[in-house]
């Protein structure tokens, strides 16, 4: 897969429907920095087998329209505390678990919004379904039997964030 572009694999004859990979990267970095003030660095994605190992919370959102896709933002609990505490100014020890889930869900919602905004400049239009969270240690998300079409890894300090795109 190219570093710069990846194709919509759902329908091979839909030529021209491409989302530049950097749109996704920029959206993740910009949304998290704007909402939390934390600097996000993109890093190399490890082997697929390791990707779901750290997961505890995934915020998930579905977009429909020119492209049907699912975005997920996956973090371990310490990262969720860091992100949501930074968003709200509430100390980690005062955050409730459901506030972590809500915060991560809201972040993926904003990332999808930012990606959609960039794509609308290419004549591709979407609507979004209400986002939701998937919770549990070492969970993973599949569409039918497929893993994600695009996996990106980011670091805030030494903590991981995974962002995945699945084409439906």
């Amino acid at each position, binding site marked *: 897969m190219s570093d710069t572009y990846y194709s919509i694999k759902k329908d091979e004859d839909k030529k021209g429907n491409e989302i530049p990979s950097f749109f996704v990267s920029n959206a993740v970095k*910009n*949304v998290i920095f*704007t*909402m939390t003030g934390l600097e996000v660095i993109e890093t190399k994605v490890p082997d697929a087998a390791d990707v779901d190992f750290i997961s505890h919370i995934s915020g998930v959102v579905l977009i429909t329209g020119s492209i049907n896709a699912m975005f997920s933002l996956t973090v371990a609990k310490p990262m969720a505390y860091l992100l*949501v505490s930074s*968003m*709200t*100014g*509430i100390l980690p020890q005062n955050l409730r678990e*459901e*506030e972590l889930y*809500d*915060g991560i*869900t*809201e972040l993926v*919602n*904003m990332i*999808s*919004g*930012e990606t*959609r*905004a960039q794509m*609308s400049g290419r004549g591709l*239009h979407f609507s*979004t379904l*209400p986002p939701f969270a998937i919770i549990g240690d070492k969970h993973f998300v599949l569409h039918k039997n497929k893993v994600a079409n695009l996996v990106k890894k980011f670091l805030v300090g030494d903590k991981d964030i995974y962002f995945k795109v699945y084409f439906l």
Partner: protein
Amino acid sequence: MDTKKMILSVDDSAIVRKIIRSSVEVLRFELLEASDGMEALTVLEKKCNDIKLILLDWNMPGMNGIDFLKAIKSHSFYKHIPVMMITTESEKESIIKAVQAGVNNYLLKPFKTEELTKKIMESLGKGVFM
């Protein structure tokens, strides 16, 4: 008659409402909260004389933001209350739709707290702080 200074936040995310609360409290307003349009209408019924501004998300389960906006802008008791949309809906068509429905200000998510505070002040107008 003692008039309170209140702002109504309508957003299905409790975390977003908490972020909004911090900005609103800096401005010495009281924040009322609702998680969708129907709940917001109930709050409005009770507090419409005290609410100086409505901060409104677009995508919410139940009654969404644009339907709520249309409902209040066609209601003689509520239509004077300014409304600021706070949403991820950034497409030009969406903004036009909101403007045509009567929105007074528009803030895209993600936003910085300072930007939110500035937009709230802008939407309230100078008179409210006197």
